[in-house]
């Protein structure tokens, strides 16, 4: 336990503030399942993306001006005059998409392998909190360029709060700091957008502490009790994570350098005009599924509650999924439903970009219903009645050593 450090300076510091032993335990010695596959890279990918977003955001904040008259121009100043400003800006805007891309896959991994089950419920909760903070930060950040989509997206979403009975209108006026989205709103959105990533860092810290209590889940979903089932994090998973970073940076670079605007909306290159509403107000792609849920329900308050509910339902997932078996590998029936759920999520995303009329509306309603049916009906029933495959005693007793 108290392995001594050879270096005198480190030992001196370690005695007074045991930071080095903590880091060594967490990043070097930490026993990690030896059978993790590439789905397990997405946690560290999310971490590195958070760092990239904070650094690029910090550099942008040195040039950005949060005033309605100057915001759009200040970003053009960054793009045209600031050295490498275009690069930092595109890293930040593409990075937001990358962040959600990575986190969605990270969550999907959790759903497939039952990582939210006992004893990792709190780990799961901390993850959902991070996700909610990301959503808030991304929404606030998108308003800052003060383009048409910034302004009107913000108008639509803040107007949702009027759905709250009795006090809704007062809350919206309070949020706006005025009678509509204007300079006071932009200023406070900037402050909050600057703050939230640091809240995320704090929650990520606890997310990792919670993780290290019981260690990572693994593709078999079984608890690992044998010592030889685990290997030290360094060098095996440090190098694997770095390899993952390499692939990730390649994809990131393709977007940043060659197709930086493909994930965005052209209307946001038009300065905000409170007197002209764009033909189609659409959020960024990562919000589309939730936008679809919102618009599927014809009643305002119910729509808002359904949209929030679609995320908050994840908090009770460990209790909705009653199966004793964690991993889809040994749950052949649930595995099918899992992929149907994923497909349905894509459908929700696709229909979220369409006008909520005609057959698009019908599809969005079916998809929304199915989303909740999956959690509220299918999972609890499956837990009770599914015939699962026998789970192995340890990870070596599996005939095919699948990754």
């Amino acid at each position, binding site marked *: 336990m108290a392995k001594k450090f050879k270096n005198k300076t480190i030992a001196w510091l370690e005695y007074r503030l045991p930071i080095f032993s903590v880091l060594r335990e967490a990043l070097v010695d930490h026993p990690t399942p*030896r059978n993790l596959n590439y789905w397990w890279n997405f946690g560290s990918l999310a971490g590195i993306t958070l760092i990239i977003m904070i650094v690029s955001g910090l550099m942008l904040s040195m040039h950005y001006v949060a005033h309605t008259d100057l915001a759009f121009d200040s970003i053009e100043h960054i793009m045209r005059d600031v050295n490498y400003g275009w690069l930092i800006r595109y890293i930040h805007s593409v990075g937001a998409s990358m962040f959600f891309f990575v986190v969605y896959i990270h969550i999907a991994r959790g759903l497939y392998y039952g990582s939210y089950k006992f004893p990792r419920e709190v780990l799961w909760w901390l993850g959902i909190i991070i996700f909610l903070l990301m959503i808030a930060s991304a929404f606030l950040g998108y308003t800052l360029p003060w383009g048409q989509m910034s302004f009107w997206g913000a108008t639509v979403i803040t107007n949702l709060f009027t759905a709250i009975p009795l006090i809704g209108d007062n809350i919206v006026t309070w949020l706006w700091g005025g009678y509509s989205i204007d300079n006071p709103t932009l200023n406070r959105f900037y402050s909050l957008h600057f703050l939230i990533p640091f809240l995320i860092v704090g929650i990520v810290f606890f997310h990792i502490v919670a993780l290290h209590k019981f260690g990572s889940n693994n593709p078999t979903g079984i608890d690992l009790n044998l010592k030889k089932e685990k290997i030290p994090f360094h060098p095996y998973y440090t190098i694997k994570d770095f390899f993952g970073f390499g692939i990730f940076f390649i994809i990131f670079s393709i977007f940043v*350098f060659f197709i930086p605007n493909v994930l965005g909306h052209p*209307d946001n290159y038009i300065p905000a005009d409170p007197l002209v509403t764009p033909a189609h107000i659409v959020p960024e*792609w990562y919000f589309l599924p939730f936008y679809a849920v919102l618009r599927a329900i014809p009643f305002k308050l119910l729509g808002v509650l359904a949209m929030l509910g679609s995320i908050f339902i994840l908090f009770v997932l460990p209790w909705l999924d009653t199966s004793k078996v964690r991993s889809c590998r040994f749950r052949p029936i649930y595995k099918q439903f899992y992929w149907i759920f994923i497909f349905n999520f894509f459908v929700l995303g696709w229909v979220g970009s369409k006008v909520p009329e005609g057959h698009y509306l019908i599809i969005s309603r079916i998809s929304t219903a199915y989303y909740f049916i999956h959690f509220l009906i299918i999972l609890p029933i499956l837990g009770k009645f599914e015939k699962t495959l026998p789970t192995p005693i340890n990870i070596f007793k599996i005939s095919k050593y699948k990754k």
Partner: protein
Amino acid sequence: MKKKLFILLISYFLIFIGHLYALEDITLKKQKWTFEGLFGRYDNASLQRGLQVYQEVCSTCHGIKRLRFRELKNLGFTETQIKEYAATFEILDGPNEMGELFMRPGEPSDTFISPYKNKEEATAAFGGAYPLDLSLITKARKGGANYIYSLLTGYEENVPENFNLGDGLYYNLYKDGRVIAMPPPIYDDAIEYIDGTNASLHQLSYDIVNFLNWVAEPELQKRKSLGLKVLIFLIVLTLLLYVTMKEIWSRIEK
């Protein structure tokens, strides 16, 4: 599992990229732009012609207020040429020591001026149809350069039978709703190119769109050439990382 992950990622990517390029009611006229693709670069000769088109045709109504005269050096103009060119413009400046605003000749650090003081004046001058500032137009429209090109070459003299075209408006195949307030700005031989190129409608449109794309994305050339270097570096590094990973894991491979 790896295959499933791969399929998931690819379908993720394809579904929404495919959606972006979804069929619209009319397909745009696609041109071969020199700035497209992995090796995209700007063609300075075309950009200079585009500047001439802007100067002689578009600048009467449209501004490009985000472009500074000094940026023209990237088109191949010398500092002296730029100084002289900028000086042909009258810039409002002030207040001076007496507290008055005054006009002075332009300098390279100034921006191109808009023909109108502000948006309200411009809108009033055209009976409610505001001639947009073109600084970012190729980024602000779906379809980008292809859309602007199609629009400029998409005017139709023959309006279909039942189509209700208002007074003073024009029929354009590519505009949302097919109605546009701007009269066809260019046509064959609308101007005479300084470099002698044949000024057909296609050529004029091609050059002005090139120019406008450069105004919207002046960093494009630097961005793509740096991008190529970064990609090659990353591919090599990732390969190295892969080999190193396999090497390290070979120690415990059972």
